[in-house]
């Protein structure tokens, strides 16, 4: 099946052609946003980290920013640093530049202050935008899509209708040679024994189970009941009682047929030479989770919600699907697909799966999702530990 998108210099295939203004640290975020404001279409991400982090925590932030720059939906990148920050602009730019796409870096200290950095950054971004505007969509294959799967603001309809619908889409995409990512390790607790059976490689299965164990262990070490935050108040108001119940509904996003190829660290790049279904170690919190998958290479997201959520991504289209017809009617500007018809009208999971898959193809070809049309660009990086 053919789709229309953007062939990148390294062979990857994107469905959007974004100009990314990438702040290396929180100290550069405001300036990056001011640069992006000069150039219509340019997107700055609100990085809240990037300095005074250590070890694996620093690496995770840098890996996430690098992944955003490398993502096939991004056509060109301007990296903006303060200068003295923990993540160095030139270094990050070099790591992104291996893709072959246009990448430049500036620092606020190097430019001589905010105003000069905005002027210099604006000049670079304008030239990049002009170049991107000449690029046209070319033909690629549906197998080149990397689909990130998310659920948030879940209620019991998520497990009954919208998540199984996403599972159908994932199974179909993988059967056509594509890739998909199941995420949200917290929302695997109580369902890990079922998902683990679908890992062919025992080492990857063990890695997956260790990820789930480690998340639960964090709640235990804090001496807290996980239920103080998971499920959330809205999950509970909707009818979900425990993390096990939430997880057992969440796992339907992984479909039924595709085996897991492996378990990825947060924002780890999905292997380009081994497609299929993957698990990624992200938190249940939607924004951090989607950010991790997009950094890992996801070019489209399908997001199931019961209570309703506006979430988008700075660089990937997010398709919103609900299993709750009341929510679809309550938040029509946010939700793309009503899988509540499975409950209220006797529609089948296959019916809604086909409808959603068709929409995914249209979105990859350029149709805006509701989150995109509204300009939703939520971004958040999962932390390994506190900042020093």
């Amino acid at each position: 099946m053919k789709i229309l998108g953007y062939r990148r210099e390294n062979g990857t295939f994107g469905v959007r052609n974004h100009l990314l203004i990438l702040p290396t640290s929180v100290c550069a975020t405001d300036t990056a946003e001011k640069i992006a404001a000069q150039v219509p279409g340019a997107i700055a991400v609100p990085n809240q980290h990037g300095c005074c982090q250590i070890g694996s925590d620093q690496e995770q932030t840098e890996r996430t920013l690098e992944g955003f720059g490398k993502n096939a939906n991004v056509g060109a990148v301007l990296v903006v640093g303060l200068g003295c920050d923990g993540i160095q602009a030139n270094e990050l730019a070099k790591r992104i530049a291996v893709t072959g796409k246009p990448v430049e870096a500036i620092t606020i200290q190097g430019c001589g202050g905010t105003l000069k950095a905005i002027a210099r950054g604006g000049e670079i971004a304008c030239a990049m935008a002009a170049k991107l505007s000449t690029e046209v969509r070319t033909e690629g294959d549906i197998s080149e899509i990397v689909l990130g799967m998310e659920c948030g603001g879940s209620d019991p309809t998520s497990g009954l209708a919208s998540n199984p619908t996403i599972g159908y889409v994932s199974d179909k995409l993988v059967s056509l040679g594509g890739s998909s990512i199941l995420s949200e390790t917290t929302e695997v607790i109580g369902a890990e024994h079922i998902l683990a059976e679908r890992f062919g490689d025992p080492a990857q299965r063990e890695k997956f189970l260790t990820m789930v164990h480690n998340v639960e262990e964090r709640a235990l070490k804090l001496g807290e009941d996980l239920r103080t935050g998971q499920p959330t108040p809205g999950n509970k108001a909707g009818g979900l009682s425990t993390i096990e119940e939430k997880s057992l509904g969440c796992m339907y996003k992984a479909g039924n047929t595709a085996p897991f190829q492996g378990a990825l660290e947060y924002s780890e790049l999905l292997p380009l030479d081994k497609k299929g279904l993957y698990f990624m170690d992200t938190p249940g919190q939607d924004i951090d989770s989607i950010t991790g998958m997009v950094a890992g290479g996801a070019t489209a997201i399908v997001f199931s919600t019961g209570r309703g959520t506006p979430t988008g991504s700075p660089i990937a289209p997010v398709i919103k699907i609900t299993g709750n017809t009341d929510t679809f009617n309550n938040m029509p500007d946010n939700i793309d697909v009503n899988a509540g018809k499975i409950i209220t009208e006797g529609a089948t999971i296959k019916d809604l799966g086909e409808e959603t898959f068709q929409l995914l193809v249209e979105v990859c070809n350029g149709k805006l999702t509701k989150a995109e049309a509204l300009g939703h660009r939520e971004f958040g990086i999962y932390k390994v530990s506190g900042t020093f």
Partner: protein
Amino acid sequence: MNAVIHVNSKDNLVTCLRPIKKGEKIEFEGKTYIASSDIPKFHKMAVEDIPKGGYCYKYGQIIGEALEDLHPGDYVHVHNLASTRGRGDLKA
């Protein structure tokens, strides 16, 4: 549309597909249940006796344990169903 959905035959809980009123008779799978309290839409009702500490099942899997003796027709949610996972609060 049925009033409830019984996802797996092993489940001792069902999910209500519409709001249920206290005292309302719910018939499905050849049995009749009387709701012992109001149950909101998409929340759960017990369809078997579940002793305190007994496991509650949905999707054919354990979703937690009963905090009190539960009876068919009871509303089952966070007030009488506890998670068995991530319970740092129970650690000695």
